[in-house]
């Protein structure tokens, strides 16, 4: 609220003492003239009083008072007339002075009225100022609440950001765990495949060996069968020879008895040979059946057709092994690609975790903002306290400029100092911390 004060009077009244002196001097001259006139009349009174005493109205007064009265009434106009040259000028002068006094009095009255108006306006201003002080004090109290409110809001924002970042970290960690488990499973699969391939390889080798043995056995058996026939034929021939020898020994009589014994032995030998041939044949047939059964088993295990011969079986087994080996290579390529992707994901995770440090930087910057708000609150509180006292002491209050300078000293990050310098401007050069490396090993 602004109040306009009236202008003071343009001129001031003359000094009142000088006017009073002129008045007294004029009165003195008048009195002196009256005394002179009274003396003159006092001389003429004796002849006038007897005339007046003839009238009853004056008889009651007596001669002496009447004489004095006549003298006074007769000589006043005379004295006035006699002294008029002296006091008329004084009266004129006095009149002018009174007029000036009157004018001065009016000016003084106007000035007093002006002062009164000023006083009234000043009183209103003081009242307004007091209201302002009261308002400021109340505002300062509200400022504390305001700062507290903003601080709490910042705390909330900080807490929210921390919660969010923590949740993101948890998610990334979970994803990484899942990825690690997946990689572990793939590694296990590779190991299993390697074991399977090795087992298949061993089985193939074994099968090949069995097939080869069977092949050789079959060949050998095939080669033995004619020999069995030979033995059987030899046995038959021997039996015939033994029968013939027995006949011939019988013909020879006594001389042929020993020959008959030999013939009998030959016959027995032939029988034994025949039995051996039969036994060999049975054994060979059994071996052939066993080999055939084994071969059937191999075919069944490898899924080969019943009609395939042994060479074809071996070729098929080789082909199967090659296919398994090829599949394993493909699987290892896929695994390698997955591992490479996982490595890349790990690097990205590392980067993401590095970027999350922003939250800590954000937290520290907000903490500084909160500190600034608290400082502002202190400043307003100090200002409010100062409003309650009449004496103003500038030194008792830390100015905002000083407080901002302290803020600058308290910064830890170059970005904070940079922002401060950009907003406030600083006469001093900023510390050259920005040129230092972010990573320094001592």
């Amino acid at each position, binding site marked *: 609220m602004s109040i306009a004060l009236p202008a003071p009077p343009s001129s001031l009244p003359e000094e009142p003492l000088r006017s009073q002196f002129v008045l007294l001097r004029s009165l003195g001259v008048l009195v002196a003239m009256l005394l002179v006139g009274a003396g003159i009349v006092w001389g003429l009174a004796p002849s006038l009083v007897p005339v007046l005493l003839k009238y009853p109205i004056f008889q009651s007064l007596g001669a002496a008072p009447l004489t004095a009265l006549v003298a006074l009434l007769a000589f006043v106009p005379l004295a006035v007339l006699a002294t008029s040259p002296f006091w008329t000028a004084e009266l004129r002068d006095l009149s002018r002075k009174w007029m000036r006094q009157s004018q001065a009095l009016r000016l003084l009255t106007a000035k007093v009225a002006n002062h009164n108006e000023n006083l009234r306006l000043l009183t209103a201003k003081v009242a307004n100022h007091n209201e302002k002080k009261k308002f400021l004090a109340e505002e300062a109290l509200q400022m504390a609440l305001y700062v507290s409110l903003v601080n709490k809001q910042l705390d909330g924002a900080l807490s929210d950001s921390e919660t969010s970042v923590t949740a993101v970290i948890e998610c990334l960690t979970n994803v990484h765990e899942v990825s690690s488990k997946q990689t572990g499973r793939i590694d296990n699969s590779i190991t299993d495949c390697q074991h399977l391939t090795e087992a298949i390889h061993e089985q193939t080798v074994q099968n090949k060996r069995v097939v080869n043995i069977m092949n050789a056995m079959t060949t050998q058996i095939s080669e033995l069968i004619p020999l069995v026939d030979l033995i059987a034929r030899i046995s038959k021939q021997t039996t015939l020879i033994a029968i013939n020898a027995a006949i011939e020994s019988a013909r020879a009589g006594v001389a042929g008895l020993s020959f008959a014994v030999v013939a009998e032995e030959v016959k027995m030998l032939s029988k034994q040979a025949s039995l051996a041939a039969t036994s060999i044949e049975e054994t060979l047939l059994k071996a052939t059946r066993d080999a055939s059964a084994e071969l059937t088993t191999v075919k069944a295990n490898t899924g080969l057709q019943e009609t395939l011969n042994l060479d074809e079986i071996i070729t098929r087994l080789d082909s199967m092994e090659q296919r398994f080996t090829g599949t394993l290579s493909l699987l290892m390529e896929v695994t390698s690609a997955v591992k490479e992707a996982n490595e890349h994901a790990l690097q990205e995770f590392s980067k993401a975790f590095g970027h999350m440090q922003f939250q800590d930087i954000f937290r520290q910057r907000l903490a500084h903002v909160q500190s600034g708000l608290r400082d502002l609150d202190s400043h307003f509180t100090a200002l409010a306290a100062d409003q309650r006292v009449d004496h103003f002491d500038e030194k008792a209050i830390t100015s905002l400029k000083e407080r901002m300078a302290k803020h600058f000293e308290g910064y830890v990050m170059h970005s904070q100092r940079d922002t401060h310098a950009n907003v406030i401007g600083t006469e001093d050069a900023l510390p050259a911390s920005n040129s230092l490396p972010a990573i320094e090993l*001592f």
Partner: protein
Amino acid sequence: MPKTILIVDDSLTMQLSLKANLEMNGFVVVTANDGLQALNKLKSGAKPDLIITDVNMPNMGGIAFIQNARALPGFRFLPILTLTTESQAAKRDEGKRAGATGWLVKPVGGADLIAVIKKLVPGA
């Protein structure tokens, strides 16, 4: 055998992000909320292969923690890295005098951090 890293930071975000990054790269991680807690862990027998500490923390700051840790038997030559927002040269010199092995200003990339650790911890 995996190497153990002690992280000293009052920020939960920093603890978690560093822990996750280091564990993904095969390290075992132990955490402490401030210098005092970390010092008590060392006194209680913790034997980390490397320490990463913040500088501005409640109860006991990073610089004081490094000074106290260096005075303990067996920790004179242990690599101790500071990971902080503090970028002033004077503070960095203070850390160096206290016995810090290196000074890292946040934010530091995850891969860069792992590279520095592998440089300081043999067999990591």
